[in-house]
């Protein structure tokens, strides 16, 4: 790891002392990052101001000293999936490639608050994936063994242990989907998703990276012919920008952006919904996931219960919630925790997920030189933000594809080397 250059000028360094000083003086804290003029040329243009785009920008600057970088977002930073997800982090995947990759991310998340000087509220409260039948129990044993081999804390536990970890769970045998066991992953947990996005934006901006919100990419300039195509820059609703490297980090919109460069990705966009209840006293420690019931639940620090489920049954770009979703969700949650019957839902929302055929991302170079992708994050990509940003930054800085993302190249579909990451979960998180 190269020595990290000091950020040139943070707008302000956060500390207990500065909080006290500003509090006593009664003045407002300075903005977390500054607005800059849009230039007509950058070394690197990153499309998409979600966790992936911003982390890539941050590690380009922090690890490689590449700071002539712009992050463009058509909305505000975190307006995509990064501000809409249920913020579950874990690394207990099924394939060794997947486990190694997500484990690196969890490790980066563990020290992120210190790295960014920004409280991202990572709470490693443990993660339980319930098994309601023999075949899922078998897969969990398999997953636990792969996890242990890769040095990830993960084990299969029985109903008695589950009851100890989550007393309010119905572990009786007389239910439609009895709980036979669970894959328990102590380092898993939840994080404050907005803080991660804002922290990366602030960190990158501190190194001189430009963050341009309300700037929509409308076209990508590609030069060349049969001997190779090369990216020249992007067109936006605020003017053209020249760049020799353009990175597509637009998740649910990624096929639209790739198409602008003449690159077709095997991705389909599906809405994914989530919902949250009114706050109640803390009673639920671990994150609880049920694949068979297609739900998961966690309790935030404020006491709200956050529920997630599977993607909507048909593809599209609509971010409207549906009644079918809350009906199904409520039924399934009550099957797991009947005592929640009187808790009221406060709101529901949706985000867009870029689903690939093998539940694995598409990362690295494309047939167009200088045009890179970090997409296909589906329902599970928030947890991958740090490792993806680090690897994409490496890829740009060194011109070589780092080993940790080598399995995720777009060429795997042509070569018939699909990954089959079933540990990505049937329910989105």
């Amino acid at each position, binding site marked *: 790891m190269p020595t990290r250059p000091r950020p040139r000028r943070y707008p302000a360094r956060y500390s207990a002392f500065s909080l006290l000083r500003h509090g006593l003086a009664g003045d407002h804290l300075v903005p977390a990052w500054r607005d800059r003029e849009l230039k007509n040329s950058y070394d690197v243009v990153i499309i998409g101001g979600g966790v992936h785009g911003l982390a890539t920008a941050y590690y380009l600057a922090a690890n490689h000293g590449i700071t002539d970088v712009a992050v463009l977002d058509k909305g505000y930073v975190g307006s995509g999936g990064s501000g809409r997800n249920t913020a579950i982090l874990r690394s207990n995947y099924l394939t060794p490639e997947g486990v190694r990759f997500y484990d690196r991310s969890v490790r980066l998340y563990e020290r992120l608050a210190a790295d960014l000087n920004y409280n991202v509220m990572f709470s490693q409260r443990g993660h339980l994936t319930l098994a309601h039948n023999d075949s899922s129990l078998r897969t969990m044993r398999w997953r636990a063994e792969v996890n242990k081999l890769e040095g990830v804390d993960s084990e299969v536990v029985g109903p008695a242990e589950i009851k100890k970890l989550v007393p309010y769970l119905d572990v009786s045998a007389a239910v439609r989907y009895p709980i036979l066991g669970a894959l328990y992953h102590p380092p898993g947990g939840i994080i404050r998703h907005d803080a991660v996005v804002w922290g990366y934006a602030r960190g990158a901006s501190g190194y001189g990276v430009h963050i341009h919100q309300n700037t929509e990419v409308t076209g990508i300039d590609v030069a060349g012919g049969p001997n190779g195509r090369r990216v020249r820059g992007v067109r936006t609703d605020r003017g053209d920008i020249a760049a020799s490297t353009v990175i597509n980090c637009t998740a649910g*919109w990624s*096929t*639209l952006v790739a198409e602008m460069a003449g690159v*077709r990705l*095997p*991705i*389909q*966009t599906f809405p994914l919904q989530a919902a949250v209840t009114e706050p109640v006293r803390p009673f639920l420690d671990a994150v609880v996931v049920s694949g068979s019931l297609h739900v998961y639940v966690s309790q935030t620090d404020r006491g709200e219960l956050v529920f997630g489920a599977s993607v909507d*049954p*048909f*593809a*599209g*770009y*609509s971010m*409207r919630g549906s009644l*079918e979703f809350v009906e199904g969700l409520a039924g399934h949650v009550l099957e797991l925790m009947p005592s929640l019957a009187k808790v009221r839902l406060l709101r529901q929302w949706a985000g867009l997920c870029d689903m690939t*055929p093998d539940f694995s991302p598409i990362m690295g170079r494309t047939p167009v030189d200088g045009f890179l992708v970090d997409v296909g994050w589906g329902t599970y990509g928030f947890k991958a933000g740090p490792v993806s940003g680090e690897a994409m930054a490496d890829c740009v800085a060194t011109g070589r594809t780092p080993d940790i993302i080598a399995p995720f190249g777009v060429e795997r*579909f*042509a070569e018939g080397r699909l990954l089959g990451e079933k540990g990505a979960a049937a329910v989105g998180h």
Partner: protein
Amino acid sequence: MILLPCPWCGPRNVAEFGYVGEAGPRPDPASAGPEEWRGYLYGRANPCGWVAESWYHRMGCRRYISVERHTLSNEVRPLATEGAGR
């Protein structure tokens, strides 16, 4: 509520249907190369706008229907061009 126009059952709630999605003709196994199969298996236009697609009326007549749907507004209209979709 999103209604799909089933030619046999009339307009019905989308929840009665199974989503099949963008559909094109299956390549001819005798002549198709890997490139063509790959496109058929994994290639999707995934547009933000109108798309011709198939649905299966599983809680109704159990037949396949084709419609055009706007993927942002979820407006639905009968298929404009005959033969597209399946």
